[in-house]
């Protein structure tokens, strides 16, 4: 019979929680930066674009290490945040931060492309009808970009679910706190007799990935029908 041990369940639950939180927290930042990149010209735009995409091309271990020296307890930002009660190092929140950073380029890319695909003339029309920049964004840009936004969120979620290198470098591999499915599978493959447990988690990972893909397709098609259909 296919059943998971409590530790395995914890890893699954933790992975889902980390991926959800990472995606949801990254979303507002992703929307803002994607909008800036798609609609505005400003000094340092190429640099911002580069920084956002950095986690995509850097070795994940490097990203994790950079997070460690920035957001660790003795890090520049981490030290300050620890003083006001926000701790990332060796906590699941740190894992969510690492996953969010790793998924961010995929999120921004998908949303930016969908913003760029929207005819700017529709936004101009909204502004002549009395809508401020923010209302134009909320009532025209955002709803029309919805399929792309959903696609970006799924990509970010999937990346967060599978993230390994940056997470393990930044917050280590602590069962019940930072040990995600990927880290647990890695751990099980390192110990004798861990194959069965690793396999069970592999099956779970495949199932979660499939559900996420099918759900995103469904949402995107629905949004597409609603907004572009007749």
């Amino acid at each position, binding site marked *: 019979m296919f059943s998971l041990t409590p530790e395995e369940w914890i890893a699954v639950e933790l992975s889902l929680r980390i991926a959800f939180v990472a995606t949801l927290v990254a979303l507002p930042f992703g929307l803002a930066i994607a909008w800036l990149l798609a609609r505005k010209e400003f000094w340092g735009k190429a640099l911002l674009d580069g920084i956002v995409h950095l986690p995509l091309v850097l070795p994940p271990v490097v990203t994790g290490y950079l997070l460690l020296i920035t957001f660790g307890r003795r890090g520049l930002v981490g030290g300050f945040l620890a003083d006001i009660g926000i701790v990332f190092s060796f906590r699941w929140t740190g894992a969510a931060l690492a996953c969010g950073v790793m998924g961010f380029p995929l999120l921004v890319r998908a949303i930016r492309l969908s913003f760029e695909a929207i005819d700017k*003339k529709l936004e101009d029309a909204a502004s*002549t009808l009395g809508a*401020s920049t923010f209302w*134009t964004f909320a009532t025209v840009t955002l709803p*029309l970009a919805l399929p792309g936004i959903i696609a970006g969120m799924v990509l970010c979620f999937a990346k967060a679910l599978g993230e390994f290198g940056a997470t393990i470098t930044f917050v280590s591999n602590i069962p019940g706190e930072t040990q995600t499915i990927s880290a647990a599978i890695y751990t099980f493959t390192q110990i004798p007799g861990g194959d069965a447990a690793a396999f069970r988690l592999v099956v779970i990972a495949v199932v979660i990935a499939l559900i996420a893909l099918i759900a995103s397709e469904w949402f995107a098609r629905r949004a597409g029908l609603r907004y*572009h259909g007749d």
Partner: protein
Amino acid sequence: MLSVDVEKRLGEIQIAAKFATTGGATALFGPSGAGKTSIINMIAGLLKPDRGRIALDDTVLFDSDARINLPAHRRRIGYVFQEGRLFPHMSVQQNLDYGRWASGLPRDEAERERVIALVNIGGLLKRRPGKLSGGERQRVALGRALLMKPRLLLLDEPLASLDRARKLEILPYLARLRDEARVPMIYVSHQIVEIQRLCSQVVRVEDGRTEPVNLEVLLRPTEEIELPH
């Protein structure tokens, strides 16, 4: 009354527009690429002039010396675009109500009924823009611009994307609009027939420069005025 005196460099073309309207319908007439659309975009607030001044009645919309540049959404100037630009994710009804809602105007059922009857779109309210014909789309765009209670209505070749039969279908609505809605209009076109039918004042635009002309001069067939199309 609208007064415009602005300059704007756009790539190769230098726009220097200077004219004033006296109300009613004013035509901006000239060949494609002369800068007509850029001029009304500056009036609408979609394009920022390099220098100059635009004023509507006693409101200064733009003044480079006084550093005034009222954003488009606070100008209350209706704009009917060449391609309608209806919001594809909203029904005709929602498109019509968008201006009132975005401008924060109170509900005015009587006005709404009147405008819907004026452009004759009562039967289309529940439809999506994607299911409308070109002529229907332009009528909805007209209604939408009117319902925000504009102080001035800009029409950028609203008939250009339509075939001849559709043009003849819309023209009477535009004439009714001018006579019944009593909103001052700027009508951009390179079609003499439309201008003759609608406008009482003509400003010719050529290579970015404006020049007031007499309607009769336009109608006299001479070589100096080339009629495109």
